[in-house]
């Protein structure tokens, strides 16, 4: 590889040379950082330091506070308490401007590129290069970095025409051409193939050698062991510990990540596993491959996995909202051909979507309007909706689900998150469903409402319905499920029966590392 010098800039000469008392030179120190969001403490009194020339990994489960934590470093959010020391200056909070002048660059999980501009223009966005746009110079800079990656992207290609792996490389290139002193990478390998990951690892090693600090976030523990010098663990917004990567191993790390006490009591239910209600055989589509599983009546099947593991994606295929590439879906033992959500609903499958505001309900309409939406055709005579029946159905679900609102005519917009969720559930139940897929059923709702949702799931279970519950909440997963299937990297990673439930076992399967990922990414 040639042209490595592109990353070297004068900035780095100001930093200590590699090997000189690295442990004592902290480039960035955070002390007692606390951030509240309504109802939760996202970051709870976190103190952590980062040294020059180290790769410092941060690990934690879904919702441990990793993303919020890095956002305090980049200035995207303002902590409520604590202070941050950058080099020799101490700030109560970092602003995006301070971050920029101190050489902090971050590559977020989501792309922050301008689709309409070319790869080169994106890479050089925000750089001052003379008075006018210098297309030649920009293309040269971009081409140099791409050569580093050994990757063939035309710098003039608009970003919208790039694949997600290519976008990720543009994103990384954009950050490293600014010669950052602190580079934050949030799940940088999620869309890269093995060979591209190897190049990224080399670039990280190189930047480290020049004295830059790399903060590396990944759920793939194998990568953490490969690339990092130290690793810090967060759990539930709290700082747990920092370990030298060489002195620890995978089981120990997992133990720190999950060491949570299962405090909340979950309502008990006594049900015997019924017949197979839904079976998937090698179901493939929407980017997820060869999923085989069985879900039974009278049972809650928990679906575990890290965010982006393909759980929601495959359920959308089951529900007919996304295209099925191959594989079979069987309902009550019979193979069915589901092409649209309408077909799925005719087979008795209901979906409570992950994002209730975006996909689940009609915020501007009333509670009864929402509840009967799926069945208005059935309760219409000729063209006119039978308003008596409408009221009957809406009232029965309103009472059964104990929706708290002054009247059925209340707009859903004005309800609390928990009650909105109940409306979405009522809407699915009204369509006479027997297989109900709950996607993150209790996200963003308060404890009392959560409990009511759990009780409702138990009731449904006892009635003989089949419940599939996708959740990122470990307690809920262990507390509510009869069986658990674990997804990792858009594939099935394993299945656990109740005797084998443990946080460690789930996390071990969910952070399966790179082994399942092959270079044959479908674009």
């Amino acid at each position, binding site marked *: 590889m040639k042209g490595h010098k592109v990353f070297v800039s004068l900035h780095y000469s100001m930093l200590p040379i590699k090997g000189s008392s690295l442990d004592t030179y902290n480039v960035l120190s955070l002390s007692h950082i606390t951030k509240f969001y309504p109802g939760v403490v996202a970051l709870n009194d976190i103190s952590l330091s980062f040294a020059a020339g180290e790769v410092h990994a941060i690990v934690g489960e879904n919702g441990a506070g990793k993303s919020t934590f890095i956002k305090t470093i980049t200035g995207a959010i303002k902590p409520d308490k604590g202070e941050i020391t950058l080099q020799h200056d101490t700030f109560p909070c970092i602003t995006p401007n301070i971050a920029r002048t101190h050489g902090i660059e971050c590559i977020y999980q989501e792309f922050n590129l301008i689709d309409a501009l070319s790869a080169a223009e994106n890479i050089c966005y925000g750089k001052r290069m003379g008075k006018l746009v210098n297309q030649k110079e920009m293309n040269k800079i971009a081409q140099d970095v791409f050569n580093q990656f050994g990757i063939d992207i035309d710098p003039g290609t608009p970003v919208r025409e790039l694949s997600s792996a290519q976008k990720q490389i543009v994103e990384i290139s954009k950050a490293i051409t600014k010669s950052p002193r602190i580079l934050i990478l949030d799940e940088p390998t999620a869309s890269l193939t093995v060979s591209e990951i190897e190049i990224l690892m080399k670039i990280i090693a190189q930047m480290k050698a020049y004295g830059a600090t790399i903060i590396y976030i990944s759920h793939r523990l194998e990568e953490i062991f490969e690339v990092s010098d130290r690793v810090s663990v967060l759990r539930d917004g709290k700082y747990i510990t920092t370990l030298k990567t060489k002195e620890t191993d995978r089981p120990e790390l997992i133990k720190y990540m999950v060491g949570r006490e299962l405090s909340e009591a979950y309502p008990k239910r006594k049900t015997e596993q019924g017949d197979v209600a839904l079976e998937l055989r090698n179901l493939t589509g929407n980017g997820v491959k060869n999923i085989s599983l069985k879900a039974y009546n009278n049972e809650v099947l928990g679906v575990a996995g890290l965010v982006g593991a393909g759980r929601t994606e495959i359920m959308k295929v089951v*529900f007919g*909202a996304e295209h099925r590439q191959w594989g079979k879906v069987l309902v009550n033992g019979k193979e069915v051909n589901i092409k*649209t*959500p*309408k*077909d*799925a*609903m005719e087979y008795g499958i209901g*979906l409570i*979507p992950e994002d209730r505001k*975006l*996909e*689940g*309900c*009609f*915020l*501007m*309409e009333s509670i009864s*309007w929402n509840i009967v*939406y*799926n069945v*208005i*055709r059935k309760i*219409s005579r000729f*063209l*006119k*909706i039978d*308003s008596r029946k409408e009221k009957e159905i809406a009232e029965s679900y309103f009472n059964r689900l104990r929706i708290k609102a002054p009247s059925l005519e209340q707009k859903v*917009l*004005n309800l609390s998150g928990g009650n909105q969720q109940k409306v979405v559930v009522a*809407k699915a139940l009204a*369509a006479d469903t027997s297989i109900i897929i709950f996607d993150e059923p209790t996200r963003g709702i308060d404890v009392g409402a959560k409990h009511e949702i759990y009780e409702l799931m138990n009731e449904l279970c006892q009635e003989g319905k089949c419940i599939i519950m996708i959740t990122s909440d470990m307690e809920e997963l262990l507390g509510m499920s009869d069986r658990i299937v674990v997804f990792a990297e858009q594939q099935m990673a394993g299945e656990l029966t109740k005797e084998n439930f443990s946080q460690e076992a789930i996390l071990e399967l969910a952070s399966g590392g790179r082994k399942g990922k092959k270079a044959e990414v479908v674009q």
Partner: protein
Amino acid sequence: MSFKQSMSKILRDYIMYLVLVVLIIIFAITTGGTFLNPQNLINVVNQNVYLLIIGVGITFIMLSGGLDLSIGYQVSTIAVVMGLMAKSGSNTLLIILVGFALGIFLGTVNGAIYARLKVFPFMITLATQYILNGVTYLLSNSKTFRTFTPGFKFLGGYNITFRLASGNLTFPIGIIVMILIIMLGAFILNKTYFGRNIYALGSNPEAVALSGVNLAKMRVLVFSVAGVFVALGSIMCAGRIGASSSGTGIGAEFTVMAGAMLGGIKMGGGGGKMNNMVVGMLIIGLLNNGMNLMNLNQYWQYVAMGIVLLLAITLDTLQTEATEKRAKLVAGQPPAEE
């Protein structure tokens, strides 16, 4: 709900009626009573009959989150085709049937392209607007058609004359047709499966798709149904004037969209009722008429219209912001200081 809250809700829901009343009072005073002459008021409504009928269709499209810029030219295309048929001596019933068929066809084409390409219909209907504009001139050769039969002109142009002590009062039956059509539109919106889906489309298309409704089909259907009202509007317009040309109905879409927005129908979907469109259109009609009676220069009338529209949008935004602000308020009171 406290008294203050319920008052503010009433004010929010009926503010445009209040504006209408205030306008009527202002014009009654400034025109020295001419404005309040029943014949004048009937005329104002009659001039807007075809716009209000088209408005029912446009309301459907707007509530479903869509937009159609080509409606004015759809009206003129339909009018010209009917004029051509009348000239060649076709049967009146056949002419009317072809008018409706053409309206449904044009709406369906717009809707189908929108449903397939999934881009905001602004672009699509801008393109079809140009196409239709060309087509009407090609068909009409810039001529005006005046050979409509009395049967054709009946719906749009027949007047009932009442002999009153104060003089004759003519009442066009077009107004009755219009009222019936508006009632039909309101019924479709509020009471039918299709009406539900119009609101659902405008409110949350993602949720519609996940609820087992064929999103594309529903989008096409909204445009097709709107085409029925556009065709009827065209028939009424040609019938009232007794003639049709390439200029018939041009600009109708902007007048009606302005009226609908003025009345409180949200661009991009998500809220509003049929009466919002009606009251907005009446305000526009009365404004024009009042200013005419005041002998105000036509150009000043445009300026006034623009200002009224801007005020309406500002008012709507302020109300929305206030609602959002209220939704974020937490119940209770601050704890006592220690």
